[in-house]
């Protein structure tokens, strides 16, 4: 494996006629790390990956791999290995022939065979070289696709939703394997996924995209705990997105009525803001405690936790979701409770228009 290379993308734009798929995108994928591109469908993440691979040419901007400008190079010259969503294994060729397809022409047959064996060993499929791809399981095919991408000794590895075609049960296990393989090889990897759980679980760095732009590029912990926008908060993990008004320094009114302490920072008094708070950060008090009065309207048992929906008293659309550990007794539907919103867990963003986002669990949000 060659020394790990970084990837730098600057001012990248791609327009298809009147449609702008990418609009001035820039980020760096550090050497040896696993970077995940995530975002809702149509956000431009796959377009970005294809531009990095050289399968498509940008309208503007440039791409550097290992400090070298590769914007004008052909895909094969860039030193990028790619695993496709469908794997695109050639079904008429054996696993060994598939892996050897992209190897340098100068290699002898023995050298190729030895390298094929070594790669099969690396991805955990020793001895399967003479099988046809159709005789392998989805998980095995994915590993063959990785071995084929690694065969030309690429500087970087690009993965286009490599787990999307697999059953959910296998998926979780394989994403662990994928991460440990990547870590072992130390190859700089950029992976597209629409599954934010997957990105949180295995990425060293997450690039959240929306409508052709990058919303945030940070390590997973930062993206989850300190989302850069209401969109990111809603897209990565579940979040309550609540319109509010800054009523006084350090005070906000949720839904314009319930006053709460919050870090209002630079927001002026009267400014409309959007408050994001994770369901597990909302504190439930079943006694006469402090906080905002609310009535429980739905309850869902989810194993380790239970998901509750409550409506703030006197606010018809004041719906808030919260999550409490299952080992604590949950209030019945219709019960009056108090909800506390810890000031340090509230994230405030300018503007308060309703923000569309993909909820983590559709049922909990209907």
């Amino acid at each position, binding site marked *: 494996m060659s020394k790990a290379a970084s990837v730098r993308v600057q001012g990248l734009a791609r327009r298809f006629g009147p449609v702008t798929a990418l609009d001035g995108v820039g980020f760096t994928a550090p050497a040896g790390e696993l970077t995940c591109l995530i975002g809702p469908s149509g956000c431009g993440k796959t377009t970005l990956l*294809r531009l990095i691979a050289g399968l498509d040419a940008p309208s503007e901007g440039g791409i550097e791999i290992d400090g070298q400008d590769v914007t004008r190079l052909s895909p094969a010259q860039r030193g990028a290995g790619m695993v496709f969503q469908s794997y695109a294994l050639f079904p008429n060729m054996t696993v060994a022939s598939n892996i050897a397809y992209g190897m340098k022409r100068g290699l002898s047959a023995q050298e190729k065979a030895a390298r094929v064996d070594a790669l099969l060993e690396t991805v955990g499929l020793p001895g399967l070289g003479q099988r046809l791809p159709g005789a392998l399981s989805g998980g095995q095919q994915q590993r063959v696709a990785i071995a084929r991408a690694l065969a030309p000794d690429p500087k970087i590895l690009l993965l286009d939703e490599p787990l999307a075609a697999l*059953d959910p049960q296998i998926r979780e296990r394989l994403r662990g394997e994928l991460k440990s393989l990547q870590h072992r090889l130390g190859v700089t990897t950029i992976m597209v996924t629409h599954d934010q759980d997957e990105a949180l679980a295995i990425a060293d760095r997450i690039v959240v995209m929306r409508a052709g732009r990058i919303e945030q590029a940070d390590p997973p912990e930062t993206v989850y705990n300190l989302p850069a926008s209401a969109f990111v908060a809603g897209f990565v993990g579940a979040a309550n997105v609540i319109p509010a008004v800054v009523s006084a320094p350090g005070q906000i009114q949720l839904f314009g009525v319930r006053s709460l302490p919050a870090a209002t920072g630079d927001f002026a008094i009267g400014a409309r803001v959007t408050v994001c708070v994770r369901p597990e950060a909302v504190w439930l008090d079943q006694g006469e405690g402090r906080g905002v009065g609310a009535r429980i309207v739905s309850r869902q048992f989810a194993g380790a936790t239970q998901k509750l929906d409550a409506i703030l008293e006197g606010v018809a659309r004041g719906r808030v979701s919260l999550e409490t550990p299952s080992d604590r007794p949950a209030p019945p539907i219709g019960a009056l409770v108090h909800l506390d919103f810890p000031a340090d867990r509230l994230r405030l963003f300018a503007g308060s228009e309703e923000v569309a986002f993909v909820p983590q669990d559709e049922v909990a949000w209907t």
Partner: protein
Amino acid sequence: MKSRLADNAAAIAAMGALAAFLLAPLAALALQSVTADDGRVGLAGVVRYLTSPGLAHSLTNTLALAVAVVATVIPLALLTAFALERTALPFKGFLTAAAGVPLLIPSLLPALALVYLFGRQGLLTPLFGGRTIYGGQGVYVADVIATFPHALVVIRTALSAADGRLYEQAALLGAKSWRAFFTITLPGVRHGLVAAATATFSLTIADIGAPKVVGGTFDVLALDIFKAVVGRQDFTVAAAASLFLLTPSLFAVAAERMAARQRAALISSRSTPFTPTPNTVRDIAVGAGAWMIALAILGVLGVCQMAALVTRWPYDLSLSLAQYDLDRVDGGGWSALTHSVLLGLSTATLGTAFAFFAAWASERSKAAPALRQALSAIALAPAAVPGLALGVAYVLVFNDPANPLHVLYGGFGILIAVSVTHAFTVAYLTCAAALKALDAEFEAAGEVLGGGGAGLVVRVIAPLCAPALVEVFIYLFVAATTTVSAVVFLYPPDVKLASVAILNMDDAGDIAPAAAMGMLIVYVNLCARGLGLVAQTLIQRRRSPSAADAAADAAVSGDPARAH
């Protein structure tokens, strides 16, 4: 996606070939129809044709014939298609083969069988009080047999696209099977029925074989063209009449495209496949009909075979191979069969290569989208041109010494060109469907790995299309050996063809040798189909490893994912 220079060139080359061998001849046909005898542009020729005394007669005949054939073939084909796709009948393979036989035979053969059965010395003629089959009724029966399998293919394809959920829902709502047939089945295939009807119509009006053999004094449009070219060398009238033939064919192609679109829209990704359940009354009723049709077709073939094997029909029915001494009669003899096989092989080889090339350029190349769309549109055009019209057009274009392709004229080359062009659309669509079914990311994978472009086509794309390529090869071979209409004006004196020989032998009264020659074509084509099936089976077997093999792999690799 950037378009590539080489890929653009490929798409343009494919279009150029279609322009030279299809669009230019058609343009010449249109031009000739408005060229007066003195070479000036004018409607004199059209007027002369439209006012010729026989025209009204042959137009009426042609229309009546085509309507009668359509009205008979569509219900029969629907019945057979229903038996094959929607019932639990046994021996469907045999039924399919028997019903498809007329696809492998020259369209003259059913007409010859009618002559043997109901002609002047026909075996069954006495049953009808001595009245013979000659005339409109003969052409009608012969064309029903000849066009039946074409309609069957279209309707069967339409019926095969069934969404099982709809039938389950209908059953849950209490609908009887006949109600499900009228509310779900028929509406679901109505575009297919229209497509089959228009195809049958245009095949019937363009057929020259049956009117020649059993038509007697029954004049039709196709015969007008034949007489104008062969008898009077009047190309203006031939061109004008050819344009008449062209119009319904255009509708047929448009209807077929619409049916294909309806089929695609009908089957959503959530459709469940329909599995016919046994229903004794329905299966017996439908099965009886389908078997009668299949046996009738085999009977026709059997009569021809018998006629070709007896000493002198109907007086001396002792078996003999005398009729196979083909060199004894005019028409071309055994060398005609050799020429036909050679024509079949070269048409199949060149045609398969060209159809695959054109389909690749339009479906998978990185040529500009506008070029690819234009190419796939032009590729549909040959299906709209009846063989007879194409033949006339070829004479007009390639007989012209100013045409650089004139060298082809009067040789084997022109026969290959007309055969490939005549059968091109089906070959192209088969290749295009196979290419479309391949993983869309193969080209991208090839590019990233550094083995894209032509290398990928040779190593991956073409091998994966092998079953379709075999199918296309056999289809083109059969089309070239059976067509009469496309080649009848174009064969040079020293290259007689078997299918044309049947026509000429029948004309000379040598009916038994004509039947013998027809049966030889049938056997050659049966062999070709058989070889094609063997090749496809071998390809499939190499492609799919057995289940046991896969299970053993799972045990070796110890992958629990495999066990699911």
